[in-house]
């Protein structure tokens, strides 16, 4: 079965393409892209007039919670949410129960993702056994099970020597070490960004230095070892600056930022809404501006959601008791369109680089482009559609979003994975 996407604005930074044209899919691959293609009888046709057609979006950083915490999210609900948000691939973090630190668990996650049949699931293995920060996992074995990176996300590697060994050992595999850069001693029992707001609210603060110190350490270790470092969810002005300087020196480092870190400040915590409790915490206005500048000038390579679902009863408690994390898969794209593209901060090409091209490059994934012969992972976006974010309409099992009630534009119309439509926006007439 062939699929023809007609008349959309095709944005594919890998081919330096931003033009109106057609995309033809055949046998799960891109068969043609660009010029007008006449529809034939064996083609399913999508009218993409007024739409933006991009290589499938890739979220480098999600928590699917399965195995072990299926009450928060499952691989099926998480990948359905991903598809609804325009993501054709997600990277699943290893802090599951059991931890993704061995072949079986990684294999299980990958297979479950395949069976679910929505977004592709690329497992991220653990750096250390049991996320304990002590012994390295069997990297070669994890790679054969399908990991695309390793990370002790949520449980940062506190021992610098272990981090050094991980960066060194991974070199022959060209596998990125994804660092959740946080000095746990400095963050202590903090639950939000340390600043005037935390002082007013009487909540313990997490200083920006907790992130900055760890970012600096990991950059210096990457520089010393030549290992491939990817910094997850950087959120401070200083961290952005450290990455910028490191890149100028030629350090092999890449970085991602989340939509909540370029749209919300610590002021959002006023009122003690626990959906604003996230790690790294929502920072100051100055930090938000620095993250946006980093996205604009390419210091930050990727936008990733750090989708962290939690059950309602877990979040509906005192701020101190609530777990860290918010969900992002279904709001990331409209936040990028509304807050970065519409105001003219990013071009569509830049946005697609951050959400597809670069994640594919960093993790060496097959997608990220609409070049002929590539897997037909495609996102069709309605850039004008404006909707209010509603908790009831979320596909994710979890509802812990601070964006409920926000009016946003730029929503997914179709999500196509390997040539199959895995998500299609419901229209009133349907």
């Amino acid at each position, binding site marked *: 079965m062939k699929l023809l996407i007609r008349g959309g604005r095709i944005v594919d930074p890998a081919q330096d393409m931003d033009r109106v044209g057609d995309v033809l899919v055949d046998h799960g691959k891109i068969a043609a892209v660009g010029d007008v293609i006449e529809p034939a009888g064996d083609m399913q046709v999508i009218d993409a007039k007024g739409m933006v057609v991009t290589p499938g979006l890739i979220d480098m950083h999600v928590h699917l919670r399965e195995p072990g915490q299926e009450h928060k999210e499952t691989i099926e609900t998480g990948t359905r949410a991903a598809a609804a948000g325009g993501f054709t691939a997600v990277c699943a973090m290893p802090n599951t129960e059991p931890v993704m630190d061995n072949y079986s668990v990684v294999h299980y996650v990958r297979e479950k993702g395949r069976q679910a049949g929505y977004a592709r699931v690329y497992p991220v293995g653990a750096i250390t056994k049991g996320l304990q920060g002590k012994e390295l996992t069997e990297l070669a074995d994890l790679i054969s099970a399908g990991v695309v990176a390793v990370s002790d996300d949520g449980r940062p590697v506190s021992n610098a020597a272990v981090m050094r060994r991980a960066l060194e050992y991974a070199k022959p595999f060209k596998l990125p070490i994804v660092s959740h850069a946080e000095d746990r001693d400095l963050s202590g029992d903090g639950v939000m960004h*340390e*600043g*005037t*707001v*935390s*002082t*007013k*609210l*009487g*909540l*313990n*603060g997490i*200083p920006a230095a907790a992130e900055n110190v760890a970012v600096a350490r990991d950059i210096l270790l990457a520089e010393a070892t030549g290992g491939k470092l990817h910094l997850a969810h950087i959120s401070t002005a200083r961290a952005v600056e450290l990455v910028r300087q490191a890149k100028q020196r030629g350090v092999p480092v890449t970085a991602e930022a989340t939509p909540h870190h370029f749209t919300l400040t610590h002021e959002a915590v006023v*009122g*003690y809404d626990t959906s604003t409790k996230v790690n790294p915490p929502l920072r100051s206005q100055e930090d938000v501006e620095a993250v946006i500048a980093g996205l604009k000038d390419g210091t930050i390579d990727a936008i990733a959601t750090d989708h962290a679902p939690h059950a309602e*009863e877990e979040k*509906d*408690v*005192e*701020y*101190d*008791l609530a777990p860290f994390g918010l969900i992002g898969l279904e709001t990331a794209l409209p936040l990028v369109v509304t807050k970065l593209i519409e105001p003219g901060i990013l071009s569509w090409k830049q946005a697609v680089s951050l959400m597809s091209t670069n994640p594919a490059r960093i993790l060496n994934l097959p997608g990220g482009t609409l070049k002929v012969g590539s897997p037909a992972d495609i996102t069709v976006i309605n850039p004008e559609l404006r909707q209010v974010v509603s908790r009831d309409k979320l596909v994710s099992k979890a509802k812990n979003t601070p964006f409920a009630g926000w009016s946003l534009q730029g929503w997914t119309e179709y999500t196509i994975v390997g040539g199959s439509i895995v998500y299609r926006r419901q229209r009133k007439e349907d």
Partner: protein
Amino acid sequence: MNWWRKDLLGLEQLSREEINLILDTAIPMKDIVQRDIKKVPTLRGRTVVNLFYEPSTRTRTSFELAGKYMGANTVNISTGSSSVVKGESLKDTAKILEVMGADVVVIRHSMAGAAQILAETVSASVINAGDGIHEHPTQALLDMFTIREEKGNISGLTVTIVGDILHSRVVRSNIWGLTKLGARVRVVGPPTLIPCGIENLGVEVYYSLEEALVGSDVVMALRIQKERQKKGLFPSLREYARLYGITRERLALAKPDCLLLHPGPVNRGVELSSEVADGAQSMINRQVTNGVAVRMALLFLLTGGAKGEAIDTGR
């Protein structure tokens, strides 16, 4: 002016007029406290629940007596006996109290925002008796009542608060309240116990107690908790007392008629020398009496007492 709020969660939200209304209402209440027969029927048939998730003797007793003097039914729930130990959430506990018919719930909790959660869950009035290190509005109100009683006015006074500013809900409430009433507030303590950005709340930060005391009309010492030393925030109680303990010699640096306040309980020899704790400038016992009066005033206002009615003092 009339009182319109359902709850008292903190002084940050209150206007100067609202604070003055509470303080004014507390004046006749103090008369009741000082009588031989301390009972008025104002809150007869009303139920006040003291929900204490943290141990407290003085605040809980103060609220309990305030309720009893006003004729209310008072019930105390403390952590040891409550369903918290059985894993019930704060919201579920709140709903239980609601359906049992509580009119006012007084909550003390170790976590910031707990009083707000409660207030959003129940239709009963909620009084924050301390939520984590966020606010402790009734303590600040009784402090302000005491200062006003002694000095006549708060506007223009210099109030210096000494000690663990970081972990003090008393400080935060006092900063909001005192600055709204026109006082100049200084905070002083070791830099490790001064919270980030406190100067943005309109106070002056000092690290030297001596410098801070000069020109002070009121000095408020805070209780220092031994756990803070264990967390490495200062080296020892000995050194703390050496730098920030209030002694007769140091108090002499302040204005001659300077008042000394402490929310209690006092670590004698650490925050205050016994000499000043028991001295003529000490307001510590007066604060306790005034605490009952201020809490009576709040119970009165929150149960609808100020809707144009005169205060029924039973005379």
